[in-house]
């Protein structure tokens, strides 16, 4: 068969091994812990870059371990997987730096960084999974690895949020399990990209395939926070800021969205999905979630909670793009994986820094914060403009492609949804920007928790600036080869050539 390569395994190992080693360290060995963590993160980014270069040269990287007849653990590198893996690994590196700064002097840091690494292992595993069962394995692993992070603070509120998180995700996982076994019984082992298997079954088993599609969607929809399965996400924002950042940008929510992309393009195939009319319900649900999340976001005073509802809305752009047939909409969906990730992580970093530096958790406390933390809030503002969809920032590119795709497919109502969402985005984000830059600070509240030469600790400042610049660059240089957009277009074009 294909040549086996240990590289995919090594990519997983670059975060798994540090994770396990950190668990074995003592709590006070923080220098060694940070070293292991950063070493793993840098190694992961380099390995993925190496594999990506090899893939573009036409090499294949596959690792296969047979567990039982028809049950295979398979890691296989393809462009979509690499795209997502690159996002995870780069943001992991940035978030690790941020987390080291954020948690300085905190409790249970050993546990935190260990599970943080495991979380990324699961996320990369999802990206590199070659077949449905491997995807499922990592999908469930992600649920478990994230739990200790959600309840990290140990307060009753955190613990209860953890409980909600688990009920939802375990429930979703159970439903997904049913779908996976059903698919295997019906179609045998399905590797991603083998859409001809489902296509060959369509004449005989159409009702079963329809049911299976929606079983899968229900299972994946929980993590992707699609209405009405989204409630866990705003509650889980009690977790420390780096966790929320990762959760909303690459790990859990994206795992669901990525799963939906895989399901439609690589399992069913866009042709079959369109032919069986599976996409319209998805489009309607996604569109509803986009508006619903935005409207709920309007009414949140808690900074992170507003961001969380915004995620509910923004991640559904991906599902919406998937549900509109056509290369442009697909490219918009795929590129939004990255764009939403870098913009939202910037916002959560900023929210975390403000809370760490000045103790402000509510939006009503943010008056004048822009003058005191100009770089942080500058990055935040960039991300806000991106989310609203102003050119030339990343979010504009996603929306532009989604809109063009909708027009191309004749779904004009989608354009209205996009416009409505932009207006709502402006309505709930701009007040924050306004307060930050144009309101006079409340003087009695200017009590800085920690002092220093910079506006905040360097490790809190650098990541937010970096991801803010990413958001800008991804939009400005979208037309260049190697930009997220050009890669997303290539991926999307391949789906339609089949």
């Amino acid at each position, binding site marked *: 068969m294909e040549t086996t390569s240990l590289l995919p395994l090594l990519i997983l190992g670059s975060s798994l091994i540090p994770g396990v080693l950190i668990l074995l360290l003592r709590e006070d060995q923080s220098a060694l812990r940070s070293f292991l963590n950063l070493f793993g993160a840098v190694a992961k980014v380099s390995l993925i870059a190496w594999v990506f270069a090899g893939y573009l040269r036409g090499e294949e990287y596959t690792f296969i371990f047979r567990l039982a007849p028809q*049950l295979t653990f398979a890691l296989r590198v393809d462009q979509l997987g690499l795209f997502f893996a690159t996002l995870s690994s780069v943001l992991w590196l940035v978030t690790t730096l941020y987390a080291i700064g954020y948690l300085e002097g905190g409790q249970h840091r050993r546990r935190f960084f260990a599970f943080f690494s495991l979380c990324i292992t699961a996320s990369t595993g999802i990206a590199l999974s070659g077949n449905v069962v491997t995807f499922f394995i990592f999908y469930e*692993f992600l649920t478990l690895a994230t739990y*200790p992070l959600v309840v990290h603070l140990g307060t009753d509120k955190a613990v209860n949020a953890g409980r909600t998180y*688990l009920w939802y995700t*375990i429930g979703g996982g159970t439903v997904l399990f049913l779908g996976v076994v059903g698919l295997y019984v019906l179609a045998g082992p399905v590797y991603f990209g083998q859409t001809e298997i489902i296509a060959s079954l369509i004449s005989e088993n159409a009702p079963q395939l329809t049911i299976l599609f929606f079983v899968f969607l229900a299972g994946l929809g929980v993590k992707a926070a699609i209405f009405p399965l989204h409630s866990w996400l705003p509650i889980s924002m009690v977790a420390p800021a780096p966790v929320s950042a990762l959760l909303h940008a690459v790990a859990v929510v994206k795992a669901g969205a990525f799963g939906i992309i895989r399901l439609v393009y690589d399992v069913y195939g866009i042709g079959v999905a369109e032919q069986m009319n599976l996409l319209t319900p998805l489009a309607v649900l996604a569109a509803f979630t986009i508006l619903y999340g935005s409207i709920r976001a309007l009414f949140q005073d808690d900074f992170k909670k507003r961001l969380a509802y915004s995620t509910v809305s923004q991640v559904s752009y991906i599902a919406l793009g998937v549900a509109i047939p056509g290369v442009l909409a697909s490219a918009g969906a795929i590129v939004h994986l990255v764009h939403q990730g870098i913009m939202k992580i910037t916002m959560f970093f900023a929210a975390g820094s403000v809370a760490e530096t000045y103790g402000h958790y509510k939006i009503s406390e943010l008056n004048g914060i822009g003058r005191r933390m100009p770089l942080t809030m500058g990055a935040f503002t960039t991300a806000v403009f991106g989310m609203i969809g102003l050119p030339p920032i990343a979010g504009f590119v996603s929306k532009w492609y989604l809109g063009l795709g909708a027009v191309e497919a004749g779904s004009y109502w989608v354009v209205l949804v996009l416009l409505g969402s932009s207006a709502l985005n402006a309505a709930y984000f701009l007040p924050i920007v306004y307060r930050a830059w144009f309101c006079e600070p409340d003087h009695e509240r200017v009590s800085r928790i920690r002092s220093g030469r910079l506006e905040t600790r360097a490790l809190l400042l650098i990541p937010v600036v970096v991801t803010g610049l990413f958001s800008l660059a991804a939009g400005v240089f979208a037309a260049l080869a190697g930009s997220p957009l050009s890669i997303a277009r290539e991926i999307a074009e391949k789906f339609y050539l089949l």
Partner: protein
Amino acid sequence: MTDLPTSPFPALLVGLPILVATLSLFFRPRGKAVVGLMGCLLTGGLGLIALVEVMQQGTVIHILGGWDPPLGILLRMDSLAAVFIGMTAVVGVFISLYAWWFFRAREATNGGFPLFWPLWLFLWAGLNGLFLSNDLFNLFVTIEVIGMSAVALAVLSGKTAAQIAGLRYLLAAITGSMAYLFGVALIYGSTGTLDLGLLRQVLEPGATTTFALLVITLGLMIKMAGFPFHFWLPPAHSSALAPVSALLSALVVKGAFYILLRLWMEVFGVSITFSAGQLIGLAGAIAVIWGSWQAFMQTSLKLIVAHSSVAQLGYLLMIFPLLILAPGVAAGSADWLSPAWTAGVYQVMAHAFAKASFFLSAGIIIMALGHDHKGSLRDLASRMPMTVMAIGIAGVSLIGLPPSGGFFAKWMLLKGIFLSGQWWWAPVVLAGSFLTAGYVFMLLRLAFATAREKEPFRPVPKGLEVCALLLALGSFLIVLPAEYLIQFLESSEAFGSGIQSIMEGGTYGND
């Protein structure tokens, strides 16, 4: 029969633990423990060597004393027996090591329970004997040896609760044995033989056979605490000493399941009907839901774990209906059978490792805190991270999340459910997982919560924590050799030629 290669291992596997157990009776308390532990390590090592032997040679036999059957006793070790013996060896050794530290730590206060060692060795001999037996009566003898030593172990702590629970356990065990013996007598009366291989050839479908199968199945279900005969299990398992609880739940109940599996698949193929299978499956399904719910409602750790056993054993019963295709479903090949028995074997192994680990962890917590009320688990994650890790890993396997052994068992179970056309069992499997997640994460949630008040905390020997953690990891590692193990098991009489006879038997598949 006699053309199979002869090996001394079957005899040693039974003889050695009995010999060491008897020997240890002559030693003083401290010596009993030393001799006992040595015996356990030896028996465990023998079990693993025997497993390798069967992997290389195929089925081996041993004729005790050179007397040919039916006069003498023939021990037969095929791949199924070898896998169960190997599992018992690994789990047994870890529990023995745990017991060594556990009792040593308690020696000063209550004498270290030296009788544990000979009883456990007798129990081990009984288990090995059961896996190796090739006729119905030997099976009865071994299951009695197991039952009696298990009851004795259960009451070892001498506490009132344990004694009351032990009495119930004893009564249930005797009732089960009597039912089984009655069925065996019926079979012997109608066929004149007790040998499993011979029986498969001569057994005729009919009222006697059906009735005998019924009482044998009932008897064994009592022994393995199948719903609705599960009432004795939670008090007996939860009131015993930690290493004993682990033995009882991980290994002892599996003995009865082993007989049931062998008899259904290897011997009684001719008399099994769709409705009989459905009935057992229903008992299993109720056990899964009821046991998990009960576990969720308990307030002490050991009771949670004990009730969880009822549910986990329910999954074992759920494989029996899958041996028979639903009416109207065409059998292309024997494909639908393989997932069912694979699910059975893997559920046995995954539960053995995970539940042993769970009970050992409970023992550690009791040793550290003095009690196991679930509220006192608060903040345990920062004080005993290794034990919380063990509970987490074992719990994940019990829930059936990938890539654990429990996941593999449930995967195969669902596959068998769909392939045999009995989709109505699928919601039970999922609901069971969901409820299990409920009580496992209830425990973990507490472990991660901050403590309201600091409880007095006694440090425990690290060895105890390591044993529990390794057993928990074992419930994951068993998945790695799955493909090889399934092939190996196919060479067993029960799953190879046994299945052939089931397939050829005209009554299979319809009423």
